[in-house]
């Protein structure tokens, strides 16, 4: 009897398309791209700021135009999704034990959301007080 194991083909590009959990994974990974592009836009804004008022006003005009706004909304959606997926996995990466008992995952996730809200509100108030 001879051995002749059969190796099945795998599409190097389309492997994630027919399994919902792989699609969710790819959506999570792609969200980083939008967050990255938004960071580049912010840096362009900083550059404009360093070049003087005219350059900064130009940046603001572009950023607040329809294309800038639509992109901001898309980037915001992906950033929220990215944050959600990131917080969801924190109990796996940072399991907490009190004695020999494990802190339940939802507590760790909730603690992250709490921190997120506190920091966001603090930044909002801080930014608001500057204008």
């Amino acid at each position, binding site marked *: *009897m001879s*051995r*002749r*194991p059969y190796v099945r083909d795998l599409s190097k590009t389309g*492997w994630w398309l027919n399994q919902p959990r792989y699609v969710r994974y790819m959506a999570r990974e792609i969200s980083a791209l939008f967050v990255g592009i938004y960071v580049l836009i912010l840096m362009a804004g900083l550059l404009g700021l360093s070049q003087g008022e005219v350059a900064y006003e130009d940046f603001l005009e572009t950023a607040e135009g329809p294309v800038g706004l639509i992109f901001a909304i898309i980037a915001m959606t992906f950033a929220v999704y990215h944050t959600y997926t990131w917080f969801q996995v924190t109990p*796996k*990466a940072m399991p907490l034990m009190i*004695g020999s*008992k494990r802190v339940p995952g939802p507590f760790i996730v909730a603690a992250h959301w709490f921190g997120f809200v506190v920091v966001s509100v603090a930044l909002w108030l801080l930014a608001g007080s500057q204008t």
Partner: protein
Amino acid sequence: MSERTIDLEVLRYDPEQDDAPHFQTYRVPYREDWVVLDAINYVKDELDRTLSYRWSCHMAVCGSCGMLINGEPALSCHTFLRDYPDKIRIEPLQNFPIERDLVVVMDDFIDKLGSVKPYVVPKEEKDIDDGEYLQTPAELARFKQYTACINCLLCYSACPQYALNDRFVGPAALALAHRYNLDSRDVGRSARDDVVASNPGIWECSFVGACSEVCPKEVDPAAAIQQMKIASTADYFMRFLMPWKRK
């Protein structure tokens, strides 16, 4: 009233006859208390003796009967017919070569499992007469979930990183490495790191998390790998902060 039946579409491959696998459909009786493995055993006993597959315990302990059931890696002894429609597709585990029918070649996993030293490496060998290596319940609780692994390979079958790069050490072997690294009786972590903290080790994982979703024993290999990434990153920075502690 005619008796309800289920159609099993089973992927068949005979290395002596076939150039490629093909599906063959078997009609089996439906029983409320049958799992998929019972239906496959019915095929073997009553319809087609040539069908090859692995199984042993029929109680989710031996880890032999993993298959793709409607595309999802699952233990066939742990998957009830009643949770499926009247047609069920059964294939061998994904990401492994097919030896014959539902039997896969698992040599790659066995080699990788050995490479992570999945056993306690004690600080100093004790004589049997000197008694056990003692451990408190709290020390046990740190790693207990990772001891539940039954090497069923569902996690490898679900892992797209392993599918795309078979050099990846993979979920179960890494989870077991973590299990021994966390064990208070073990000092083998640095010896394991050559394999574990390498590119084809933990750093090949991109945290898809599919391994943990399909694990029938709630081992959570994805969690083990992320925790080792954090520990390995801490090691990297500690080498700069405290060079005299270099191992």
